[in-house]
């Protein structure tokens, strides 16, 4: 293909480990008996529940209404009866209020989810639709998509980038989505371009996914102004800032990957932890335990269960957490894979500096942070860290770099908040 391959500065090349699932077609997982739908799916304020125990809900019915602008509504992923509303383990926040629905297995759809024709919709209508549909970006924070699509008036946006770079090792769900449903992806781009009124749209895909590039390139021909950009396979190519730089050489707000209402494409893959790694279409609210059972169950003792990928994912303390909108994958690591190495002294090899996609000096930020000298961490731009984990991954001395930078960021944020309050 005559496409130019784009990249960014820094980064690392972890083993992909995608062999387990990259050729596995997406399967629809049978909806479980019970779903636990957290009222807080992403950053921002939690939703107010719109239903109460005993209510009957339909598939796709809105069950939670956001309080602020940075929030997206929550919908029922099955039809059935609301059993209770209570605290459940949450994959990103430890605990959270959730609506527990007993599935009646009928999948009776709510009136609101009738398919609409993209061409016939106006810009405002489309934006409201995205808002109502509760679509969120798949970045770690699951930022609500409609927020990104409502830029302040004084910011001129001329480019939309659809992020098809799935750089985390093990994960292949986006990859499969692009191969199997390229038209959906292209329609998503079309919708975003329309809402934002921009002429130029890119779908960025890493060059180790030639089948996805082919499928999308074909589908995208129908959209004027849109094209596929090939990216170098490198972590964290999918990180927003790195992606934007690679594609346009500058910084622009970008759009997220839109998703269907109430379901996410979910990926369960691992070397040893799960019997049959799969790409599954999972109802939101399904517990990790149910998903893993659908993959043939656990092999031996799981040592670590991660929501997301191995570079940025969050380790879970129980299998009873439900899948939420931002869950890009579930990873089960065996004891051997989960081993956290003993840190040694920094040998000043400079690898972390070279790997940092933000151009930071992780070794120094971390050294100051570990000494409690957060002023100096801040001076060295600790707040610019995107927590991609490249530094910790690459460090031969296995220093807890991103871990300590994270601590520094927390302390600095807290200080700033307090300073602002005074």
């Amino acid at each position: 293909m005559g496409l130019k391959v784009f990249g960014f500065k820094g980064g690392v090349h972890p083993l992909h480990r995608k062999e387990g699932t990259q050729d596995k077609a997406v399967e629809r997982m049978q909806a479980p008996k019970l779903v636990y739908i957290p009222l807080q799916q992403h950053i921002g304020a939690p939703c107010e529940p719109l239903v109460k125990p005993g209510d009957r809900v339909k598939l796709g019915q809105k069950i939670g209404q956001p309080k602020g602008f940075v929030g997206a509504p929550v919908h029922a992923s099955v039809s059935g009866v609301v059993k209770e509303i209570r605290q459940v383990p949450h994959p990103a926040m430890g605990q959270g209020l959730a609506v527990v629905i007993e599935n009646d297995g009928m999948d009776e759809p709510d009136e609101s989810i009738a398919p609409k024709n993209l061409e016939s919709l106006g810009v405002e209508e489309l934006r409201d639709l995205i808002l109502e549909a509760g679509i969120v970006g798949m970045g770690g924070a699951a930022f609500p998509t409609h927020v990104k699509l409502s830029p302040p008036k004084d910011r001129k946006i001329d480019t939309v980038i659809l992020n098809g770079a799935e750089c985390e090792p093990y994960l292949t769900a986006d990859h499969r989505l692009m191969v199997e449903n390229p038209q959906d992806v292209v329609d998503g781009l079309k919708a975003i371009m329309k809402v934002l009124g921009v002429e130029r749209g890119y779908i960025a895909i890493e060059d180790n996914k030639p089948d996805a590039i082919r499928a999308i390139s074909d589908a995208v021909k129908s959209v004027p102004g849109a094209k596929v950009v090939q990216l170098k396979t490198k972590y964290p190519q999918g990180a927003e800032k790195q992606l934007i730089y690679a594609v346009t050489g500058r910084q622009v707000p970008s759009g997220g990957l839109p998703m269907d209402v109430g379901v996410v494409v979910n990926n369960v893959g691992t070397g040893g932890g799960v019997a049959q790694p799969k790409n599954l279409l999972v109802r939101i609210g399904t517990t990790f335990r149910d998903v893993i059972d659908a993959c043939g169950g656990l092999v031996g003792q799981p040592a670590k269960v991660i929501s997301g990928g191995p570079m940025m994912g969050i380790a879970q303390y129980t299998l009873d957490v439900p899948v939420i909108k931002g869950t890009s994958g579930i990873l089960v690591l065996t004891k051997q894979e989960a081993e956290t190495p003993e840190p040694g002294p920094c040998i000043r090899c400079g690898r972390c500096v070279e790997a940092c996609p933000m151009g930071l000096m992780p070794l120094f930020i971390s050294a100051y942070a570990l000494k409690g000298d957060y002023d100096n961490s801040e001076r060295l731009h600790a707040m610019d860290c995107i927590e991609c984990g490249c530094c910790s991954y690459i460090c031969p001395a296995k220093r807890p770099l991103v871990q300590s930078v994270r601590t520094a960021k927390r302390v600095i944020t807290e200080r700033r908040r307090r300073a602002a309050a005074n």
Partner: protein
Amino acid sequence: MEPLIVSSSPHVYSKDTTARIMLDVVLALLPAAAAGVYFFGGRAALIMVISVLSAVMTEAIVQKLMKKPVTISDWSAVVTGLMLAFNLPPTVPLWLPVVGSAIAIALVKQAFGGLGHNFMNPALAARAILLAAWPVYMTTWADPIHGAMGAVNAAASADAVSSATPLAILKGLEGTQEQLPPLWSIIVGGTRGCLGETSDLALLLGAAYLLWRRVISWRIPFSFISTVALLTWVLGPQGLFTGNAIYHIFSGGLILGAFYMATDYSSSPVTPKGQIIMGIGCGIITSIIRLYGGYPEGVTYSILLMNVAAPLIDRFTMPRIYGEVRADV
């Protein structure tokens, strides 16, 4: 079910470890070590073994005394011991490497906090101290027992002669090339000099391995060597552009110093730009000492001087932060 491990991301790590990197350096030094034994005989092997053993033992003893965990299994003391031996003439008395290793490990490395905290290359700092304390031992060279192409050098034995190295000849009689050993013998090995610097070919072989393994980057060696080449060519003895750059590159300790010494992690800058500055700085100082200084060789001192400057260089070459010009947020 056993409790799940909960730790913050990342959950995977690269296979590279400190010990693996140090082992790679030892492996890379083996061809040059073999060349040293080939050209200078069994005594060279003896010096290397003594140097490595005393480095490792010093590390263990010092760490025991300081009640720190003993980390001799990370191979870093082996690297230091071998590097020191490489920087000794093959004629030194056998107690000299013992003293040198003790200085390198106890004084230069452990006294400053151990691995990663020494601000000078331990082996080079020890060499400089030995040179000041025992100048005669440190500058008595031997003729190699083999020629570059394998011919046995009948006249030579391991007997010490205080004859000149190619660099000394270059310095005194530059331009009269007849006096110099042929270029290929300088590159392949078999001219007088320190144990480890005799065969550039063997050193480059190891350097290629280190570059391939990404243990070192091209930045310091390339900028170091090209600066020396440029300066020694431009500032020639018969006026501008008459210098013998090729001889300068392959004589003495430049290849050893540029690829193995100046690239020492602890004592060189961590920023990519800083590393280039380090190389250029080393190149300038080496050239000045070689061309105008009192010693024929300047590699050791140039690296030590730039070691001292490394923290400062780091501070002034911080990488550009992504998004310093910000469009959103």
